[in-house]
């Protein structure tokens, strides 16, 4: 699956000696067992249980469970909130991925240059990553409230006409949610790109500069291809993360207004916990899982085709 390299960078030669040594390699099964039993055990148990629940009409607590087969899935196809979640997730993924990669590479390059206060900047972009959403969500609700910070600022600089109730518009609310996610994750992306870029030979960049290449040219021709592996990894993680999005829309807009910021996570929570329709919630979960696995496979395959990608 992967072509590994030793520290110097030359590809390892597969010789018959190796094959013999491979056979004598100690059995690894007992070593991967703790992780497999623990994680795969617990999570797959939950998964299978969820699959079973998805065929029920149940409220999660009472002993009354009615088997309804695939009725929950049929209901999903007709549920416009479900299709809305799907659309929002897709848009969310595209926008957050693009902006995070752009910002991440920019920050990484800037932080590699000889500028002042680099550590301070790095810390500032990374602090949002370590803060939990539960602590930062109230801040954002307040910033975009009708008499919150943003509107006060606009009024103060004379741009009163721009002061809106931001959360009242579905599209703007969705953009705000994307913005919060970008705020929270760009730190990690920057660090990953920073490390990836440090593996690019500085001589190559020097040579390009001597040849007269400008900054943008260097980024597009040297940096971008050079960090391909990182980009693929980030794409997969962002795709899966988009499907899992829950904290931010839940705590800031609650999925509203009128389900304009509803994601799978919030819908599952609302259906399972608030409306006590655990069966339907489980069906949504199963579909979510299938989508996530498909996304990971598709992105990985697409990335692999274009070059060497290690996952």
């Amino acid at each position, binding site marked *: 699956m992967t072509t*590994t390299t*030793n*520290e110097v960078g030359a590809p390892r030669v597969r010789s018959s000696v190796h094959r013999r040594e491979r056979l004598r*390699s*100690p*059995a*690894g*099964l*007992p*070593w*991967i067992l*703790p*992780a*497999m039993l*623990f*994680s795969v055990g617990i*999570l*797959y148990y*939950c*998964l299978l*249980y969820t699959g079973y629940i998805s065929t029920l009409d149940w409220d999660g607590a009472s002993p009354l469970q009615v088997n309804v087969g695939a009725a929950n899935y049929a209901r999903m196809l007709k549920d416009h909130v479900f299709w809305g979640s799907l659309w929002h997730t897709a848009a969310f993924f595209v926008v957050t991925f693009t902006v995070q990669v752009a*910002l991440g590479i*920019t920050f990484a*390059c*800037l932080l*590699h*240059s*000889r*500028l002042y206060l680099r550590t301070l*900047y790095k*810390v*500032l972009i*990374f*602090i*949002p*990553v*370590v*803060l939990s959403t*539960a*602590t930062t969500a*109230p801040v954002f609700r*307040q910033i975009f409230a009708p008499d919150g910070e943003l509107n006060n600022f606009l009024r103060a600089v004379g741009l009163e006409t721009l002061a809106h109730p931001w959360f009242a518009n579905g599209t703007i609310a969705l953009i705000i949610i994307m913005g919060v996610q970008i705020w929270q994750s760009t*730190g990690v992306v920057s*660090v990953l790109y*920073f*490390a*990836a*870029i440090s593996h690019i030979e500085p001589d190559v960049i020097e040579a390009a500069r001597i040849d007269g290449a400008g900054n943008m040219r260097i980024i597009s021709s040297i940096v971008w291809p050079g960090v391909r*592996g990182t980009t693929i990894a980030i794409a997969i993680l962002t795709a899966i993360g988009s*499907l899992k999005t*829950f904290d931010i829309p839940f705590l800031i807009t609650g999925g509203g207004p009128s389900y304009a910021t509803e994601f*799978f*996570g919030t819908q*599952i*929570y609302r259906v399972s916990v608030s409306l006590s329709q*655990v069966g339907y919630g489980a069906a949504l*979960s199963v579909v*979510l899982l299938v989508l996530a696995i498909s996304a990971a496979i598709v992105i990985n395959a697409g990335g692999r085709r274009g070059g060497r990608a*290690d*996952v």
Partner: protein
Amino acid sequence: MFETRRLRSRVFLQILLTILVVPFALPLVAMVRGSFAGSGWGNYRTVLSLPLLPGFFVNSALLAAAVIVIVLICTMTAAYGFSKLHVRGKEIYFWALLATLTLPEVVLLAPLFATVTKIGAYNTLWAVILPVAALQVPFTTLLARNFVDGISDQMLEAARVDGANAARTFWHILLPLTRPIMAAVVVLVFINAWNDFLLPLLFLQTPDRQTVTLVPSFFVGQYNNDQTKVLAAAVITGLPIVLAYICLQRFFERGLAAGALK
């Protein structure tokens, strides 16, 4: 990396960087400012005088510690196994593990609740520790496996020729080499365990078991959503993590980068 020899470009780049970073810092400023609105330091006094507040920190610390230990054990052994040892159908197992990356916590609610109450683990930290750890292991194994892939086989081969079995190789040779990625795993898992909200909310009921992430919700009442104290509580609960990050920043970046590359 960028052209910084000429003063003009250096100034331009410095300004560009500053402009880009400001939106990241603004919400933090707003958070701190909002926590001082109304009663100012009084908000902090109220939050800090919550009974059992130190207990919350202790519970969060216990949760984080237990999760870290479990995750480290599972991750390092699995990374060693997947990367350096022979397992039939290795990639199938690996993909099975990675597939669980796609599970959001919210999906686990129904099965976990049913199971936890049946085995009587309700209101114990274990009901939170085990699922949180299980959710971390796939990603950390992914990182660690990539890192261990980059460790030269020759050293391990040499050890084996010397007569060491897999266990001794692991303990004496591999682990010392994997310090950066272990540090990264510790920091990552610490952040996620400390910040976990949903599972403690549902499974930890009595204040002597609850974790620090539930403190802001103390101030959300039916008729009085006390924003100022919520923000003060948010600052107080976020401070340890921020400080820890600032101190351990270098380890974390090195480890994260080392594991995610290749």
